[in-house]
């Protein structure tokens, strides 16, 4: 089906409302297998930018490294790089194997949290 090219070379029907033109898992090279770990609220931190050779990396990997220069929760990272969670987890898995990020998983619910932490949360919420 041929669409008339618009002024900037994009077909006319392809406006912002169309959403991302790239299928979500294209950036993972078609890999869809779920990656374990990387809980929604796990914090990831990337290696310092000046110690990473960005050249051989995919743009999405680079963006993740840039955003994760400071600790960032996985859900927030996904929102900021504007990729689906499953995609971000696969890319994070790549970076983890390459030693370019570390992940700090949250403690399992059974051991968390002690009452000092809960009290701190209540106090913090009251003070907001």
């Amino acid at each position: 089906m041929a669409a008339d090219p618009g002024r900037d070379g994009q077909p006319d029907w392809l406006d912002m409302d169309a959403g991302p033109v790239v299928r979500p898992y294209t950036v993972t090279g078609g890999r869809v297998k779920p990656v374990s770990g990387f809980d929604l609220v796990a914090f990831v931190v990337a290696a310092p930018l000046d110690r990473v050779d960005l050249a051989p990396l995919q743009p999405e990997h680079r963006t993740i490294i840039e955003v994760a220069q400071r600790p960032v929760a996985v859900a927030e990272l996904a929102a900021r790089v504007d990729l689906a969670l499953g995609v971000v987890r696969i890319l994070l898995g790549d970076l983890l194997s390459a030693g370019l990020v570390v992940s700090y998983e949250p403690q399992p619910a059974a051991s968390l949290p002690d009452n000092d932490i809960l009290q701190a949360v209540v106090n913090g919420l009251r003070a907001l």
Partner: protein
Amino acid sequence: MDSVHSDRPGPGEGQHIPIALKILIAGGFGVGKTTLVGSVSEIRPLQTEEVLSTASEATDDVSGVEGKNTTTVAMDFGRITINEDLQVYLFGTPGQDRFWFLWDELAFGALGAVVLADTRRLADCFPSVDYFETRNTPFVVGVNCFDGIQRHSATAVRSALDLDPDVPVLLCDARDRQSGKDLLIALVEHVASRRVPTG
């Protein structure tokens, strides 16, 4: 990926990693979950998406050309920084029943949940209540009083939902920051009371 093989880059070295607590905001479609997340979050609510691929095996699609359906589910979330060591993340649960399985990921490790109820459509929150009761996840019920109109008392809602006596039920206004904070405080205190049965 073999971009760095020389020195260990040591990601995370010397970085301060806070503890993140996860709280779910549940309830029926259109009950005000995202509104509540927005009213208490320090950031404009963010959206994270999960792409669901449904394998074609359950269908009789014989073409094999487009063997799966993809659906995108958006989850709204917000953040509250308690102090440099503690952050609370609030996740709105997807409203539609067909996304139930996503709840397991959301509920994993969650501190607890706020179930929002609308007395005009009380049955909409039954599945949420049921889910958290079954999983033994602590929760509180917030009766969202739209337009400031209180149609039923908290006692009536408690009775209609057949809740355990220790489950807090609060009247609330999801648009109001203080009201949202009160719900979260009630939840955390409820969690604490369950954790220390012997004081």
